[in-house]
Structures are given as structure tokens and as C-alpha cells.
């Protein structure tokens, strides 16, 4: 399937600190790979909708990250910024297969993330 070509292996879950993030250098620019306290993985563009802050450097709490530059909070599940701001960060599908983390380089369309 065409879609299969979009999946890339980026490492193992041990490489990402819990409540932390690592950076992936991707063709479209830096992507932040997050691991939450309950071991869920999320991948979002590493660019805050406010002024481009690198989200991978923020503090991860619950399923959110706080931008290191001016403290905007981004919901990792939706890529949306917390009210009252309204901005959105593109996000990507991540899966774990056979102990490896696979990232789908095709950005999710907005509707997919309810």
C-alpha cells in the first residue's frame, strides 16, 4: 500500500524519557516525539503556533506540553492549543511494532483528530 511507504523507524521507547520528548529530523522539518507518563507516544511538529517555540523542549504533563518560550499549553492528542488561544500544531501517527517506534510522515488531516 502506498501508505506503508510513509512509515519510518525512529527508535525504541526507551530512547524517549517518560514525561519527555526527543527530536526527529524529518524532511518537512523538526518533529517532536513525546512520551507521556502513561507511556503513550505522540508526534507533533516541533513548532509552537505562537512564535515557533521548540515544543520538544517543553515540560510534558498529562497529555499536554507547555511551550518553553512563553508557556502556551498544547494538547498532544489534538495538537490544539489550550483555550483561550486558538492555534493548532500538525501531528503524526505513531505506532509501536516489535519494540520499535514507527512514525507516519504524512501529517494527519485535521478531521482525524476529534
Amino acid at each position: 500500500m502506498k501508505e506503508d511507504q510513509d512509515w519510518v523507524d525512529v527508535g525504541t521507547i526507551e530512547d524517549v524519557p517518560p514525561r519527555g520528548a526527543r527530536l526527529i529530523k524529518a524532511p518537512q522539518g523538526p518533529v517532536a516525539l513525546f512520551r507521556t507518563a502513561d507511556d503513550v507516544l505522540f508526534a507533533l511538529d516541533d513548532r509552537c503556533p505562537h512564535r515557533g517555540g521548540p515544543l520538544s523542549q517543553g515540560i510534558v504533563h498529562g497529555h499536554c506540553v507547555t511551550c518553553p518560550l512563553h508557556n502556551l499549553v498544547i494538547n498532544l492528542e489534538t495538537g490544539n492549543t489550550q483555550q483561550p488561544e486558538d492555534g493548532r500544531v500538525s501531528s503524526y501517527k505513531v505506532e509501536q511494532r516489535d519494540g520499535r517506534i514507527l512514525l507516519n510522515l504524512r501529517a494527519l488531516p485535521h478531521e482525524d483528530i476529534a
Partner: protein
Amino acid sequence: MADDIINLPKRKKLVVIGNGMAPGRMLEALFKQTPSIYDVTIFNAEPRVNYDRILLSLVLSGEKSYADIVIHDDAWYAEHDITLYKGRKVTAIDRNAKRVMAEGGISAAYDTLVIAMGSSPVTLPVPGANLGGVLAYRDLDDVNNMLAAAEKGGRAVVIGGGLLGLEAAAGLQSRGMQVTIVHLGPTLMERQLDMAAGHLLRKSIEARGIAVRTEAQTQALLESNGHVRAVQLADGTELPADLVVMAVGIRPNAKLAEAAGLEVNRGIVVNDRLSTTDPNIFALGECAEHRKTCYGLVAPLYEMAKVLAGNLTGKEDTYQGSVTATKLKVTGIDLFSAGDFTDSEEREEIVLRDGARSLYRRLVLEDGRVVGAVMYGDTSDSAWFFELIKNGTDIDDIRETLIFGPNYARGAPQDPTAAVAALPDEAEICGCNGVCKRSILESIAAHGIADVDGVRKHTKASASCGSCTGLVEQLLKLELGETFNPAAVAPMCGCTALGHDDVRRLILARELKTIPDVMQALEWTTSCGCAKCRPALNYYLLAAWPGEYTDDPQSRFINERAHANIQKNGTYSVVPRMWGGITNAKELHAIADVVEKFNIPTVKVTGGQRIDLLGVKKEDLPAVWADLSAVGLVSGHAYGKALRTVKTCVGTDWCRFGTQDSTGLGIRIERFMWGSWTPAKVKMAVSGCPRNCAEATCKDVGIVCIDSGYEIHFAGAAGMDIKGTEVLGHAKSEQETLEIVVALVQLYREQGHYLERMYKWARRVGVDTIRNLVLEDENRRADLFERFVYSQKFSQHDPWSERAKGAEAHEFRPIADVSNLQAAE
């Protein structure tokens, strides 16, 4: 002749025996009438002024100092022309001569006498009760004796599980002693609480690490060399003890009155005008017995004080007795009890429990009125219930939802401000000082009060035991709306209702040692906190448990996690330490070399006497640091809530005005203190003379050298606020200066709220309090110094060289580079 012209009546002689809280309040009310018609003389067995006895427990736990709890200082007595004999016990009252006799051959004649001698602690009639190391809990001397004993650590046994015993136990435990409470009754505080609440209380006390033995009768205190060594119980158990505190009850001081022929029962019998059987003699406070009741709490005594002041100024006021309410002043334990809640035929009860949250509420009803209330775990509605009891309000209409408190009872939304809004104007907010809702609201409006401190100053509400602070805040909110910002007790963040102080105290009291522990024990409402509380908790744990706590990098802001300051474009800046602003050719070469090697775009001299390399790529950081480490340059912590710079001037090295070696001292301090984490950043400076070229007087800590030594300043700022420093004190030598500065910073490390700069901490805690702790109290200073030195063992290592050698490598490298793949879409 003169007498004919100046026809003023001679002032009457008022003599007061005892200088406690009740007469203090009475005199305040009396002096509202001017000119005063009395010449006042006070005899006090304690060698001091009037202080807030209620707050002794906070002096014991270290949250306040004696200076903080003084109610009337010497100046107050002088201002009102009062003769105060300190440390002079009255030994006899001669009613015929209308004169009192005191120790030391002093005597005073009276027209009117007020006996306000309070109570004495009861001593158990067991062998060994007079041994060394056996103390009561009544006055400042007792607290000082307990503190001296606690210094040595060891075991303490507190006999008596009532209010005083529990506060003593909690205080001693927080001072590091291993504490056991021995209590005769079946549950703790059984006179104020029912079984269920007593049980919950016991669980909370035990959870702090205090052992509790109920139904335990003390049989003897065992000795070794004249000092207590153990408490022996009736069942034969021996509890080892280096200190025993007896808190088994109080007895009104009535002997003197009895000897003078006044009617005495348990206390000195008074009528509704508070007069004894001699119309010239009144009794007031704990020593008085009114309608067969002796009170042991301050609120009723203050009511008496008001009535008596009225009577002494010619009014016909009468005292009708009081309903009392009890709260325990142990941080983290919320309990309330009021009225009468014993079971009986005519009574019904309503109970609400939430086992998971240790919440318990019980109301006792009689004839459609609330007559008693016990609350544990959540006492936010206590004022409302207390009002219902005092007023005997008919509650039939709201009975269904009564137990849920005023919000439900009136169908209003559940919000604490609404609950306070629902209180009637006469509702008593501050029990200790008898201040009602209306007088607080009126004061807020009349004096433009904007915070709790203002309310304390103008109305005294919340100024005693402090348990009504929450209500006072709600009133401020009600009156001021959104403009009110209760900074002092605001919750740390949206994840908890607790404020910074509570969290810090509970971390120590409950020995919480990891972030998840804190969140579990203190019932965080989020699964893993937020970007506000996590860094704060990480710091509090680090400061509380040096050497034990493992730092959590994921709870640090990126600058501290990466040990460099993030810039607006995601690059970083690197600021090496330049001790006291001094550098040399070798360091400058190394800096110049890394700038060239890594194409660092900007090199700037900072406002802190050092050099900033701006625009370094994150991946390059470890390599940049490796090159800098090679010549001994270490992290300047320009990114940290930590010691930043110690600016200096050239001092005696070069300057024609220099009085001391300011550069050397600055370097010495910076080398001693670098690496330590603090609540917010700490900046220092040392100037060689009062010309102050290092700008020491706007720093967190500043030292101005003078001929006779060193003037130590602190609590300055020159950022968002500009504030000149306060003078902490004077030191004679460099060594003494260093010790004081270190102790000061350690105190700040232990008390500061996260992100609270030193000047804000000083404003909150009080410059005098800090000066007392750091400067006047040499033992305390030595302890603080030692604790700082101990914690430095674990923090004084260069994070840069560690990372240059490979620590935390993942922080600086991408996990994967797939940028060579074709971009999707």
C-alpha cells in the same frame, strides 16, 4: 487654689494581676475611652509583655518567632502610661487596705482590682513528675525548654491527647524528635470530637510518624541521674523518653483569691458583670468561673474582656456566657467542633462520610435546631454551622440538604465565595477576636484594604490562630471582586488547593520524598502535575532531602535541564562563571577559540560582569563546554534558579578608597556557594566602600565594606521591581560575613516559595524575623550554615563538564534523522 481651678477628678487606680491575653484585650477596649480615667498597674509573673499564647505552637514548630507573636510591645505600655512589673508574682491581696503585695517587696494600692491570672497546667500525681526533662506546655519558657531539648533529638513522650498535647507533639516531631502520645481516653480529643472524628484524627497523626497510645494510663516517670528516662504505663510498658511533656489539663489560678476570702469554686466565681463577691474586685479570663463554667479558649475570654471594659467605664454591660468552638492548629489537619454533641433520647443526628477522602461531618439536632457539629477533613462551612448553633436557628426548611452546607441549603452554586456571601452580617468570622462579617466588610471599604494583612491590622480578624484566614479571603473577594489576589495563600497551581507553604511543610512532616509521593499524599487533582507545580516540587524535594532525592530533569524548565538559556530561535546561550568578574588571558583565549570554532554569532558582556556567548546550536553545547572545561571554566548558572553572579569592585587591590578586599571576598563567596539551587535566582555583590561601585544595594545579597568591617544587606532588586536593600547587620571578619550570608541564603532556600525572589520572601516573612533567625540566634545560624554545607556536597559539581563527558547525551541529540527521505505529500 489650683485645685479650685483645675477641677479634674483624680484618676482612679486600676491594678491588674496577670498580663495575659484577656486583660490585654480589656485594656485595649478601656483605652478607647479618652482621656483615660485610670492609672493602670500590672503585675505579671512571666518576665515579659503580653503575647499571643495561642501561637506558641507555631513558635515551637518554627513557623514564627517570639517577636512575631508579641501583642503589646514595651512602647505600647509606655504610650498608655502603664506601670508593668514583669516577672513579679503577686503573693497576697489585702482587701481591707485595698492593696496587693508582690514578690520583691513591691506593693500597689487599688481602687479597682482585676484578677486575670489564667490557669496552671495540671501535673499528674505520679512518681517522677518533678524530674528534669519533664515539662508543661503553657508559656514561652516551656517552649524554649522544649526547643532546647529537641536540639539534642531523641524521643519525646507527650502525655495527653487533647488540643495542647497534639500541638506539642506535632511541633516536637517537626523539630526532629521521635514522638509518642500517651492518652488516657479511648480516642484523641474526646472532649471535642466524637469517636469517628477522633479515629480519623488518630490516622492523620500516625501518618506523620507520631505514635499514639490510647487508653494508656501513666503510672510513673522513671529516672536516671535526676533526669527522666522513660514513661511507665499501668500495663507495665516502658516508653523510653528524653523529654516528657505533660498536657493533661489546666486548673484555674484561684488560690490567691480564695486566700483573700473571695468566693471560689473551680475558678473565681463572678456574676454577669464579672464582679467577684467583693464589688471592687473583678475576675477575668481563664481564672474566672461564670455560671458554673470556666473557659479555656480565647474567644469567650475576649467577650468577657469587652464586657468588663464597658463596666469599668460606667456602662452596665453583662456577659451571658459563650458557645465555644475548637480548631486544631496543626498544619494539614482540619478539624472543627462546636456545641454539644453527646447522644441523648431527644436528639437526632445527620452524618456525612467520604472514606476515600477522610471526610466526616456530623450534626446533632434537637427541637429543629443544630446544637452540635463535628467536622473533619473539610471545615470550610464551619462558620455557617457555628452561626446556626449560636443563634439557635430553626433549620426545618433546609434540613434535607443541611449537612452539605450553605451552598446546597440555599440552592446556590457550590463556590466558597457564595457560601460566605450567604452568611448573615452578624456572623462571626474570627472566633478568637470576635469579629463579625459586617465589621470586616466595613473596614475593607473604609480603609481601602486590599489583602489579608490589611484586615488583620484593622480588625484583628485572622490575626490570632489564623484558622479563619480562608473566610477572610473570601470576604475580600466578595468585596473587591477579581481585583483581590490572595497571593499569600493562593494554591500552588490548578492541580492542588494547597499553597506553597503547606506543601513545603507537608513534604517534611510526612517525609514525602518523590514527586509521585507528594501528588498521591497531598491529593493532586491531576495525574502528573503541570508546568507550574512540577518544577516547584522538584526544588522543594531537592532542598528538603539533599543527598536522598534524585533530581527529576523532566520537571525542570528547559534552561535548567539543558544547562543553557534557550533563545527566541531555539538556539542557546552559554555563560561561563567568571569568579567575581575576574578573568585572565587563558580563559579569554578559550572563549575566543570556541566562538571561532563553533561560529557563535554573538559575544556580549553581560550586566553581571561576565561574557555571554549567544546563538549556540543545541547539538554543539557539549562540545563547546568540553573546550571551556579544558581551561577550568564552569557553568555560570545564568539559566538557573540558583546563585548567579557575585559582582565585585576592585577594592583594596587597586582603588584608593577601598577599605577591604571586596574582590577577594566576592570570589570567596561565589566559590563557596555556586551550584546551590534556590527558590529563585540569587544575585550578589560586594563593594569595597560606601561609594558602592558594585551596586550591592540592589542585590538579593549585597555587602558594603567599611573600615570597621562589613555591612551586610539583603532583599534588594533591580528588575521588574526596583528596591533598595535592607540592612541585615554588621560583621567584623570575612569569615563571619560568609557565615551570615550562607545562613541567610539557606533560610531562604528553606522558606522561599518557588520563583519568589528574596525581597518578596523578606516582605512575606518579615525582615526582623529573618534578622532574628540569622543574626541574633547564633545556634540557629550555625545550623543553617551546616545544612547549606551539607547540601553543597551534592550540588557543587559542574554540570557542563559532566555533559561534555557524555551525561544526559540524549538531551542534545535528535533521536532520528530521516530528513533525507522524501517529504510526504
